[in-house]
């Protein structure tokens, strides 16, 4: 299995999507009244957060499926999703403070949304660490699947934190319809681009992971011939 047609199509789509998204975010979308151009971080911060959470949800489902089916493929999926999820969450955690410094005058504050986001990031870094430390692959898969299930508890907390507690971090105006209509197209284009990127990366990562397993299998064969 190499790079399939679908992957090529996806790759092109991602490229186009990112270019269009960049155009929309930087040129098409209106300049915000109080924050100015700074507000354009919005178009990266928000989609990254949403797609990051989605990736971790994929990890959760794949973890459950692994424990049910005991099939290595689910483990690879869980691993790939976690890695990409951590990447997106890192983007959130970098763009957030960059935005916060001028708006809130601080880099960071320990509000529920921010804290739970940080914890979420730590949990999945821990997930990747655990995988590093279990040498036996069958055991690694089971162990990390259990941790993946436990760690996911934090994701709903992140999502609902701004609704449950009072938070400096704003509630999404998108939901309440408060988002200026002119900003919507840019936001949704960016979200779509990030989503495509996620799917593309996930497929590629899965491919690399399966390839790695194939190499492993081949080197096992070679070892046997010695």
């Amino acid at each position, binding site marked *: 299995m190499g790079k399939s047609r679908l992957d090529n199509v996806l790759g092109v789509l991602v490229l186009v999507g990112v270019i269009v998204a960049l155009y929309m975010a930087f040129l098409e979308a209106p300049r915000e009244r109080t924050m100015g151009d700074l507000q354009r971080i919005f178009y990266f911060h928000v989609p990254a957060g949403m797609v990051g959470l989605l990736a971790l949800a994929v990890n959760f489902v794949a973890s459950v499926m692994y*424990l049910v089916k005991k099939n290595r493929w689910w483990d690879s999926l869980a691993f790939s999703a976690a890695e990409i999820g951590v990447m997106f969450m890192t983007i959130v955690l970098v763009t957030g403070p960059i935005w916060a410094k001028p708006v809130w005058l601080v880099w960071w504050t320990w509000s529920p949304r921010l804290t739970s986001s940080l*914890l979420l990031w*730590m*949990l999945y870094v*821990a997930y990747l*660490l*655990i995988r590093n*430390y*279990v*040498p036996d692959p069958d*055991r690694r898969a*089971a*162990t990390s*699947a*259990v*941790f993946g*299930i*436990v*760690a996911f*508890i*934090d994701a709903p*907390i992140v999502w609902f934190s701004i609704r449950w507690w009072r938070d400096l971090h704003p509630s999404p105006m998108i939901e309440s319809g408060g988002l200026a209509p002119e900003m919507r197209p840019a936001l949704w284009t960016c979200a779509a681009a990030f989503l495509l990127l996620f799917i593309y990366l996930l497929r590629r990562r899965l491919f690399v992971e399966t390839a790695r397993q194939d190499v492993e299998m081949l080197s096992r064969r070679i070892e046997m011939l010695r």
Partner: protein
Amino acid sequence: MIAKVWAIFRKDMLIELRTKDSLNAMLFFGIVVLVIFNFALEPVRESVRAAVPGVLWVAFAFAGTLGLNRMFAAEKENSCLQGLLMVPVDRGILYLGKMLAASVFMLLTEAVVFVLCLVFFNLTVWSEIPWLALIFLVGTLGFTSVGTLLSAVAANTRMREVLLPLILFPVVLPVIVNAVEATGIVLNTVDYGALRLPVTFMSVFTIVFTTVAYLLFDFVLED
């Protein structure tokens, strides 16, 4: 089933009674954390009373992690875990027995550390004790319910001595935050009505994680 949970619990207690390894270490570590905090809080001494709940629960959490670590290290010492795994008993039972033992160790430690904390920070409590006992109980169960599961996870890795705090703290932080809040309510404001939310949270957390761990324990237990 209860007889078997009890057998495991009693075995751990018997060993502890004989060696006092875990309790000594947990207590000592709890005290060390108190002392360290005392120094760290030196510059904000005036408002220290407000910080007591946080200090307490950080000390509890560190001591508890140590106890959990120790518990599985002991089980691995002589490959004892291998013996346990060969017994025809549902592994959820092992989980419950271990969790029970861990909770008792932690509660004992908490009692002593709490009294010391009162002395260090010049506090007096009497009528609040039943409330505090309740909070300590649910907080501790919340902590050990995940802690026991994750200490088995950590024990599966090449880095078991050091991994547990790394993976446990992020998961139990919600419990700790709620426990700190509840303890603060009892010690500082006296608005007992406000206790309902954190206590409910901790109880739900405990129930959810005990169930999850009971079901998942089989997958992480290996010698």
